[in-house]
């Protein structure tokens, strides 16, 4: 028996929202008993998109789009909260809300820490993503969100088959859970979640010209060193910057090396202009 999961490469996501809309295309005006009742035309997002706008510095803003289907948790709080087995995990790992048994169990909406369960007010029915189980059972290779993705950044498949696309993707990338602190063992994995960021821009003291090719060395709290080189604008950055007490040094031939301690205690740190003198 396959174990289905999804991995999403956020580094390739362009924020087109096709996945969100494709989900509606599949589930609005269509019911797929016994795994899904019809999704209302508006207001439910079995796949929603959470956006993170990180202002790295005044000349670099990074937006990460995070598509959020149901996480099909290994330890699903919704299943525990449901009465009469209204929410159950199939052998293949897909978590299903039984549209008949779940009717009236409105409290289930609050049981999901990811906010992935929506209430169908008219029917009093909690509803959510099914990984398009009706299509998977029909032999489709992927749910609609993944099929619609123009960048093919959503990998769906059997994580127990080492030859599957998702297994290969997970083997080649450092994937992680979204909100692991919820402790629900999600079966959706992410590559490229927003990380702490450090940046600055280096100038030459005389004329305040942009200083290119400056070697910037960041020594982390653990003593590990990372280097970056300034570009033509004097800009440098460290993606996935460490937290804590660090040391940062700037070196450029012909100029006095500068070094100073910095404490990285925020998600985003912009050091502003650093002046180098001869």
């Amino acid at each position, binding site marked *: 028996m396959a174990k289905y999961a999804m991995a999403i490469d956020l580094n390739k996501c*362009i924020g*087109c929202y096709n996945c969100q809309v494709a989900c509606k295309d599949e589930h609005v005006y269509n019911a797929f008993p016994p795994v899904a009742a019809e999704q209302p035309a508006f207001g439910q997002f079995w796949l929603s998109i959470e956006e993170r706008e990180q202002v790295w510095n005044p000349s670099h803003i990074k937006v990460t789009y995070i598509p959020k289907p149901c996480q099909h948790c290994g330890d699903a709080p919704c299943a525990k909260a449901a009465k009469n087995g209204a929410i159950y995990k199939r052998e293949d790992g897909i978590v299903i809300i039984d549209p008949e048994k779940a009717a009236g169990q409105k409290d289930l909406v609050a049981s999901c820490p990811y906010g992935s369960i929506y209430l169908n007010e008219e029917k009093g029915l909690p509803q959510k993503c099914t990984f398009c189980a009706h299509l998977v059972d029909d032999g489709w290779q992927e749910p609609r969100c993944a099929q619609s993705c123009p960048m093919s950044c959503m990998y769906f498949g059997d994580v127990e088959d080492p030859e599957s696309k998702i297994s290969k993707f997970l083997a080649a990338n450092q994937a992680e859970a979204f909100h692991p602190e919820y402790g629900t063992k999600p079966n959706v994995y992410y590559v490229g979640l927003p990380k702490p960021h450090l940046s600055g821009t280096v100038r030459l003291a005389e004329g305040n010209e*942009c200083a290119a090719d400056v070697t910037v060395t960041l020594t982390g709290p653990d003593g590990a060193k990372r280097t970056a080189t300034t570009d033509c604008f004097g800009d440098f950055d460290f993606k996935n910057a460490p937290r804590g007490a660090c040391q940062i040094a700037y070196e450029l031939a012909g100029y006095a090396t500068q070094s100073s301690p910095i404490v990285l205690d925020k998600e985003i740190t912009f050091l502003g202009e650093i002046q180098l003198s001869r």
Partner: protein
Amino acid sequence: MKYSTKDEQQYVNCTLSGPVRVFVKDKKIVRILPLEYTQEDDAKPWSITARGETFVRPNKAGIACWVQGSKQQIYSKDRLLTPLKRVDFDPNGERNPQNRGVSGYEPITWDEALTIVANETERVKDQYGPSAIAVTGSSHDSWGNIGYRMSALERFWNLVGCTWIDHDPDSWQGSYWGAIHSWGFHWRLGQPPAFDLLGDTFEHTDMIVFWSSDPNTTSGDYAWNETDHWRFHMKKLGIKFVFIDPHCNYTSVIDGDKWIKPKPGTDVAMALAIAYTWIKEGTYDKEYIASHTVGFDKWESYVMGNEDGQPKTPEWAEQKSGVEANVIVALAREWAKKRTTLAGGGRSGMGHVMRSSYGHEWSRAMVLLMGMQGLGKPGVNYYSTTGGAPADWDFFFPGYADGGISGGSAGPKDLGPRGFPKRATASQIRQRINRACLPECVIKPPYTWRGVYGYYGQSAQQQFTECTFPFPGYSEIKMIYRQGASYIGTMMETNRFARMYRDPKLEFVVNQTIYNEPEAKFADIIFPVCTNFERWDIGEWAKISGYSNKLSPTNARVVVLQQQCIQPRGQSKPDYQIYALLAERLGIGEQFTEGHPDEMSWIKRMYEVSDLPKVISWEKFQKKGYYIIPPKMDKKPAPALRWFYDQRPIDIPDKPMSSDRPTNRPDGLARLSTPTGKIEFESQTLKQFDPNDDERPPVPHYIPSWEGSESTEILKNYPLQLISPHPRFTFHSQHDGKTLWNDEIPHHRRLINGYRYWVIRINPADAAQYGIKENDLVKVWNDRGVVLCAANITERIRQGTVHSYSSGGGYDPQGEPGVNTTIDKGGTINQLTSSRFLSKNCAGMAPGSCLVQIAKWTEGEV
């Protein structure tokens, strides 16, 4: 019984943003998928290997979100399902034109509706002549070469006779009114070719400067999410992306390395400072200047300040643009040092700067900057990363601008020689109107402008025509026939259009459209049209032809037999059938149909005259529904302007059809279509037209905007600059205001107090000053209109500027339509933009130059 999609029927169709596969059960659409190219007999993916990395063509279409949401649009509650008559319109009695836009409608039969329209057409023709009927279509209410406006609508009205309301290059005004005079390409309306530039960029380019360019949004017209793959690959190859735009746009926030944010309207000052730096430091291509250009000394004189005493230094530019001089210098130096490509605008067109006051000066300055760095050199191109993938351009299949069954009015006429149609039609009435000043022509003629009559791509000189409406002896406009509906939304200062429709001079207004959209509500009779999912057609994805000949921004040329998936909803009909029925009543049925019994007969004929029969039988094409034209990968690439750089005869697949300034003269020398055949720093055409034109002088100048950062008087009341580029989550107004799923995308609309408001982007510092918070309702206004929006507070827009997309389709006046103080709840930003043209001799729109005031708005406030 176990659910299986195998129990459903499958069809293939094409839309203005991609080909799709449609599943149908019980005569209803179940789902719509982007088309995959994975069948056994599909063309195998092409690949390009450069710098040690291989890019492989994706195997499915990167459609737009609104195409993915087509099902909701097809079944939208805003569909028109019966012919309608305005309740207080009586063709034989009181017409009550003053109630257009306010009165309700009652359903009537097709017979009644067709009779009224045919009778009125005859009456107006008899009384005033055919020139009294003004006609236009919309871009693009449907896809498919037979049903498109340039096809069926044009054929019908060419036969009946009318005053055409001209479409103009309004998405890339600056290229047309400016760049043409620097590098020619008049037959492409000023836009450069992109042939084979994808591979050239992969191989040779180090940096791309995206200047007023957001390809993730404008994509290259119809390709939508096709080109992001390319930019990710470019990033993988280490190509640096710099963005110059007051808005940290959608491409910049995923791909950008640097965001530079000039004040709107000051881009030319920045460009001049870059040129200044290159001249001062000697870092431009002097040999190229000598061999490939003319008039550099005049440009140099202006840039260095010899002409006007003001050297265009980076410090001077900083004062104008707000961009730090040292950043301009750093950019200039890197640009000169690295192999740099300029993405000036979206499809090397579009972008708000070229649709602003004096946008032609910017477009010319962009060409000249590239002229200083050896345009056409490997890796040094003018290229927006939205075209130039491998494609076989020897394979003929027409695009929409080939004109379908009309015979074509917009460029190369490749269909005619192949016998399609048997008899081409042409406009019988010489009088024409520029759509941007349609209200003035209707309400208060005579009206004059300097521009173009008819097709814009015939010569560079045609844009100097002094145009007048009406022509001597011709009629004023008494009747408007509109297919589709998007003026209120896409044109400037759109309260003018509401006033026009309510003017008693207009005796009769027809709207033929799919949706009950804002402009339809100003008609006397409404014909309900079905979508192209409810009828047959044939078309190639993103294929324009004509003025954009052999241009494709997609990864594959996909020709689709657009299969009818369901019956037309309600009583709606295909555009073609409506014209056929009207033609019959007007006694020109046979002339219109050429004896074709239905659309399918035309479609089969188009298949026959294309190159498709060489590669796929009609039977197979009918069954499969599409064909992917494989590129010839053994053919040596011919990057767009390499021939010019190498000084060889032109070798790209597209050459000018007109004789204006031939690039293919018998001497075989490389010539652009400028008078000198070279890049003209000093335009010979403009010099000839008027050497003293201070708004478009022979050498491009920085001219402060008539409504911008230096407009001291206007700024007193309206202190914020508004930019309103092409929208990200609708194509024109087509996919907005129709209860669609993109309404739920927070960049597009936001649900506040039960209403979905259009979004305006405000810098946090400005928001703090005005006491506006995220998702607050905001009143945005100036002397031209008042619009309500939902606030998005973001660092992505520079302080002092607000950003809200153009082309909302939800016009919802909370009072008398057409009154400038009436609040529009629907977010029609173009109520606020000025109808003033780019400059006095350039009749193109300039929405990018707009000043407004904002305030927090509370429900119930007036």
